[in-house]
C-alpha cells in the first residue's frame, strides 16, 4: 500500500515539475519537487529498485526538458546514496521507519536528511549541466536558488501534511 501511495505522489510531482515548477525559475534556479517525493520512498524498499525508480523519474523530467541523461543520472545517484545519507543521521536500531518523515525519524533529523540529499542531488545536477556551459556565477546562483526553493517547498509540504 505504501508503494502505491509513493508512486501516486511521484506521478503527481512529475506533472507539477514539468508543467508548473520548470516554468517558475528565479535567476535560472528551479524548485525540484520530484526529489522530495523520492526522498520519501520507503527505506526498506529494494535498493536496486530505488535506483531504477530514480533513473526513470529523472528520465521523464529529461524528456520534457530536452536534457537527456542529466536528471536521470543525478536522480539515480541520489537514490543510490539515499540510504547511506539517511544512516548518517539515524542510528541503526531506529532505522526501521518505513516512510521517512516528520513522525519518524522526526522533524530535526528529517530536515537534516533532506537537506543533505537535496544538496547532493542539486550539486550533481548543475555540475553535469555545467559541462555544456560553464559560468561560475550562474552555476553558484542556480545551485543556491534551487536548493533554497526545493528545501522550503518540501519542508512546507511535510509540515502541511501533518496538520
Amino acid at each position, binding site marked *: 500500500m505504501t508503494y502505491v501511495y509513493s508512486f501516486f505522489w511521484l506521478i503527481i510531482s512529475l506533472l507539477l515539475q*514539468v*508543467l508548473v515548477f*520548470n516554468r517558475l*525559475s528565479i535567476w*535560472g*534556479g*528551479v524548485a525540484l519537487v520530484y526529489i522530495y517525493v523520492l526522498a520519501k520512498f520507503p527505506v526498506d524498499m529494494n*535498493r*536496486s529498485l*530505488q*535506483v*531504477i525508480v530514480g*533513473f526513470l523519474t*529523472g528520465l521523464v523530467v*529529461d*524528456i*520534457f*526538458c*530536452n*536534457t*537527456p*541523461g*542529466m536528471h*536521470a*543520472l543525478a536522480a*539515480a*545517484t541520489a537514490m*543510490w546514496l539515499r540510504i547511506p545519507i539517511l544512516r548518517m543521521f539515524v542510528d541503526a536500531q531506529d532505522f526501521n521507519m518505513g516512510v521517512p518523515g516528520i513522525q519518524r525519524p522526526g522533524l530535526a533529523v528529517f530536515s537534516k536528511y533532506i537537506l543533505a540529499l537535496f544538496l547532493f542531488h542539486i550539486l550533481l545536477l548543475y555540475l*553535469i*549541466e*555545467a*559541462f*555544456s*556551459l560553464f*559560468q561560475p*556565477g*550562474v552555476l553558484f546562483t*542556480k545551485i543556491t536558488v534551487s536548493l533554497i526553493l526545493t528545501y522550503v517547498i518540501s519542508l512546507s509540504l511535510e509540515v502541511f501534511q501533518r496538520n
Partner: protein
Amino acid sequence: MNSLFRFLQRNSAFLTWLILAVVSIVMLCQGNPYHRSIWMGSANRVSGSVFQSVNAFTSYFGLREANEALLRRMGDMEAENQRLRAMLVQYEDLHNPSIDTIPQYHFEIAHVVGNSIAQAENYITLDKGSLDSVKVNLGVADHNGVVGIVAAVSEHYSLVISLLNPKLRISVKLKNSDSFGSLMWDGESYEYAILSDLPRSVQFTAGDTVVTSGYSGSFPKGLPVGIITETLEREDDNFLVFRVKLFTDFNNLNSVFVIHNDRQDEIQKLENQ
C-alpha cells in the same frame, strides 16, 4: 560460482546504478541536437500532447502584451509597406516592370507548446511537424524578432534550438552596415546574447539595431534580433564584441512564425556542387 553470485547480490544496488549511470552518460554525450532521437525530447507524441493540452489554458496569459506588440509591429510594417510601394513605383518608372516579384520566403504560424529559459541549453517545442511541412533548419521568429532554428521534427511537433542555447550561432549584421558577425548566447540572462566577430572597422553606437544577415538561408535578411547595449573587451583585438539586448521576450513566447525559404533546396544544391 557461488561466491560470484553472492558478490552480485550484495552489490546489486551498485551494479544497477553503474549500468544506469553509463546509460545516462551515453545520452549526455549525444550533444548534437540534430542527431538526437526525437523520442528523447519534448517533441515526441506523448510529451508534445501533454504540453499542448496545458498550453491551451496558459496561452491566454500575456495576450494583452502580445496584442499590443503586434499592433505596434503592424504599424511599423504598414509604414515600411508604404515606403516600399513608393520606391517600387519609382523603380518601375525607371526600368522595365519585369522584376521578379515572387517572394522567396513565406511564413507559417505555429504555437509554442514547450519552452525553457533557465537551462544551459534551451529548446522550444512547436505544435507543427513534418505533416505541416516543417523541416530541419527552418528559421523561427515571432513578432518581435528571431527565436531559433528547427533541429528535429516529428509528425505533429517540432523541436527548435532556442537562441538561448550556446549550440546555436546565427549570422547577423548591424542594420546600418554590411559587415557581419555571429550571435551566440552566453548563458547569463534570457534577455541578452553576445555578438562577436565584427571587424574593428565597423562604425557603431550603443543602441544600434542588430538584424539577421540572410547568409544562412534560414532567415531572410534584415529580420530584427536586438539592440547593442554595451561593448565588451576581449583579448582578441581584431574583432568587436558586444552585448545585445534581444527583442524577443523568451519568457513570454506564444505564437511564432516558421520561416519557409522556397529557394533553400536550390541554394543547398548549388553550395554542395
